[in-house]
Structures are given as structure tokens and as C-alpha cells.
């Protein structure tokens, strides 16, 4: 008769193995149908009543999560096979191998419709460029040497650096967390459907504070604490906080979304003209 401790150990090992197999399938190194979903579910069910610690429950939910991904892959596989695009990869590989370069070229050009695009200067863009050139200050005026007076070397204290706004009062991560909590509260109060207008969140009484909030908000989005929802046609930008930081965002290919936080835009927001 196995002790409870031993049973738990075996259960953990089984769940670990399930997760490993599922991950191998997700990485496409194994056929999704190699996994018997019913067997896996019965294993998960068998050990579930024994889990009490958070780590074990985490392992259990991780196994279920990966199992769901494998089921999704199985359904995609079935869907793909039922489309007319499905061709046996081995058959296709064989066909490709039989083709010489010329034949392959002929096949490809039969299905290839290259894009047409032009790059050309217009009179308008030339005139724009000339206007820019006229307004551009010469380098010697732009890069004037700063007249810096000589001072004796000394040490600056943290308070002095904070006073000169070189350092912030709080650690950056604390400030970020604080901003995230603020966003979640505001969305609860004023938001609709778990989101609120971007400008309503970053907008503050002073322009300086607005810029500071926009700066912090950009990090909230980059680090996966929140996301933006953009309706380009209506020119509306919403911000949506996540309940938990989405760490996967940092590993995905991201895009930059420029939002101009200019003084004019801030004034428009205070007048209620900007969302």
C-alpha cells in the first residue's frame, strides 16, 4: 500500500510527463494524435482530490492548459485535412523532389501575382522638403557649445537628485505597480466593458503630470500590465488593464503605437474635445 506522500509524488511526476508531451506536441515535434486525451483526463481526475498545496494545483492547471492546446491542435489538424488545401506532405515533398528548377519555376509563376508599387517624388513632397530646409537652423547654431561654469567636484545626495528630478521618489517598479492599480480602479469606476478612453486615464490637471502619466502608461503596455484597443475609423483609443500581468507579451513580436501627447492635445482634452 503506497503512502499518501508517495502517491502525490507519483501524481506530480505523471503531470510533469503530461506537460512535457503536450509541449513537444505544441512545438510540432510530435503528432497531436499520439496523445490519448481520455487517458490524460483520467490521470488528472485521479490525482486532483489529493492536491492541497498551491504548487500542486498550479501543476494541475498547467497540465489542463497544455492539454487544451493539444486539443486545439487536433481540431486544427482535422479542419486542415477537410479543406481542399490539404495534400499529403510526403506526396508533395516527393513531387517537389521530382521537379527540376525550370519546372518548379513554371509552377510557381503560375500561382504568383507580384505586388505593384511605385516610389516617386511628388511636387508636393519636394515643396514640403524645401520648406523644412528653409526652416532648418545651420549646424553651428543648433550645436552651440554650452557655457558651463566650472564647479568643484563633490558628491550629490539622493535627496538632491530627487529635488533636481534626476531620480524619482519611488522605485520605478513600485511606481508602475501603483499606476496599474490606479488604472484598474479607474476602469472599475468610469470604464465600460473593462476599458476606458486612453486620454481620460493619462489626462491630469497639468501638462507635466499628463506627460508623466503617459510615460508610465507606455511601460504598463510594454510590460504586459495593460493593452490598447484602437478604433482607427472613429479615432478612439482605449486602454484595458489585465487582471494579471501578461508576461508572454514580452516574448512576442511587438508593434509600436505612436500617440502624440502634445500641449495642444492636452488642451483639447481639458476642453473635452479629445477622447
Amino acid at each position, binding site marked *: 500500500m503506497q503512502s499518501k506522500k508517495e502517491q502525490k509524488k507519483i501524481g506530480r511526476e505523471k503531470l510533469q510527463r503530461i506537460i512535457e508531451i503536450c509541449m513537444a506536441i505544441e512545438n510540432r515535434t510530435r503528432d497531436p494524435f499520439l496523445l490519448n486525451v481520455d487517458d490524460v483526463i483520467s490521470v488528472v481526475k485521479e490525482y486532483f482530490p489529493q492536491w492541497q498545496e498551491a504548487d500542486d494545483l498550479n501543476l494541475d492547471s498547467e497540465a489542463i492548459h497544455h492539454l487544451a492546446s493539444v486539443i486545439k491542435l487536433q481540431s486544427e489538424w482535422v479542419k486542415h485535412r477537410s479543406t481542399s488545401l490539404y495534400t499529403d506532405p510526403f506526396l*508533395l515533398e516527393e513531387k*517537389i523532389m521530382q521537379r527540376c528548377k525550370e519546372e518548379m519555376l513554371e509552377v*510557381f*509563376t*503560375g*500561382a504568383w501575382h507580384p505586388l505593384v508599387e*511605385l516610389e516617386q517624388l511628388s511636387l508636393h513632397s519636394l515643396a514640403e522638403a524645401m520648406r523644412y530646409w528653409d526652416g532648418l537652423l545651420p549646424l553651428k547654431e543648433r550645436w552651440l557649445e554650452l557655457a558651463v561654469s566650472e564647479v568643484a567636484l563633490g558628491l550629490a545626495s539622493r535627496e538632491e537628485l530627487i529635488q533636481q528630478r534626476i531620480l524619482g521618489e519611488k522605485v520605478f517598479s513600485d511606481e508602475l505597480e501603483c499606476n496599474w492599480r490606479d488604472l484598474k480602479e479607474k476602469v472599475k469606476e468610469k470604464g465600460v466593458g473593462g476599458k476606458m478612453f486612453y486620454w481620460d486615464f493619462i489626462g491630469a490637471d497639468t501638462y507635466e503630470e499628463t506627460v508623466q502619466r503617459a510615460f508610465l502608461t507606455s511601460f504598463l503596455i510594454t510590460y504586459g500590465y495593460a493593452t490598447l484597443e484602437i478604433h482607427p475609423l472613429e479615432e478612439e483609443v482605449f486602454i484595458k488593464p489585465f487582471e494579471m500581468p501578461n508576461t508572454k507579451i514580452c516574448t512576442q513580436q511587438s508593434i509600436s503605437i505612436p500617440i502624440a501627447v502634445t500641449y495642444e492635445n492636452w488642451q483639447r482634452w481639458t476642453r473635452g474635445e479629445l477622447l
Partner: protein
Amino acid sequence: MKKKKGVYASKMKRATHMLFYRRHQKPGVKGWELHKALGVDYPKVLDILDEYLKSLDLQVKTVFEEEITPAKKPSIEELDKARFYITLRGELTPKESKMIGWRIDDLAGLGVAISYIISKKGQAPRKDVENLLGQKLPGWKVSLNIDRYIRYGYLQQDDNDQLYLDWRTRAEVDERELINLLLNAETKKSQAKSSNATEEDTKVDEPENE
């Protein structure tokens, strides 16, 4: 009536400017940009432009978001999210493709890579594609070529060295047609072979008959 015609003519011009000249890093225009510039009837303007371009062997190509082409007539929301391009309507001859800066090896390699990835449900390990191309191309060229396909937007690669089809393939290549051509080319070839063989058989038979 005349006024309406004039409005559509000017909208068509505006659509031509937007579609032919590159406005962003990637070519093509998003539906919502056309919606904003041309108004809610922009699909009709694009239809007229497409009809006009037919005689020039060009077309307005629509690529829907997440590669899912709606089964029914697409809604305005679906069109707003789609991307529009101008592409060649017909086909280039192999000779013409050389004239637009592609070497025969590179283009054939691209065809092989795309069809292989399609056959693997849109995802294949880079190593497998390299092995396949390496059977007919020199090793040093294989990796360079794949990098080039990625740079041009035909393929994309993730952190696990898996290759996928990218935006340019979706805009330029008729995937179904490519697979059909690849499979049919074999049939045609074997048909040609068998008809040649029959002819030869007849030729052999002829003297005997004489």
C-alpha cells in the same frame, strides 16, 4: 447622374494614389484608411477600379485579417480590417520574372519553401526547409535565400526556428493554385510521357505492318 460619375472618378483617382504609392513600411492600404479617405462606399470604388485595371492585367487584391476569407459577402467591418494591394492579375512568364530581379534558383526555391510550408499546415522547422532546398541548391546559398525570403516578407520565423508564411505570400501567392499546379504538373508530365510512349509503340509497330 453626371455629378455622381464625377464623384466616383475623383474617388477612383484618390484610391489609385493610395494603392499604388507606398504610404507605410509595408505596401498596401488598410480598409479603414480607404473608408476614411473615400467614404463608406469605398468597396464600390475599388470594384470600379478593379474593373478598370483588368485591361492592364492588374487587380485590386484583398487580404482579410488572419487569412480568413469570409464565406459570404464580406461585411464593411471585415473589409475595414482587411488590407488592399494592387497585384498582377495574370501570370509572369519565367523570362519576365528574371527581368524583375529574381534569379531562377531563388524563385524556384521560394516556390519550394512556400509549397512545403503549406503542406505542413502553414508551419515547418527551418531545418527541414533548409534540407529540402539543400538537395538542389548549394549549402551556402540555402540559408542566405531563406533569410532573403524572410526579409522580403514571404516567410517569417519565430524564436523556435519555425517558418511560417508571411504577409507577402498571402498577398501575392494563390496557395490553392500553387498546390494544384504542383500536383497537376506531374499528371501532365506523365500524360505526355504515356502519349509519347504510345506514339513510339505505333512507330515500332509500323514497320512490322509494312
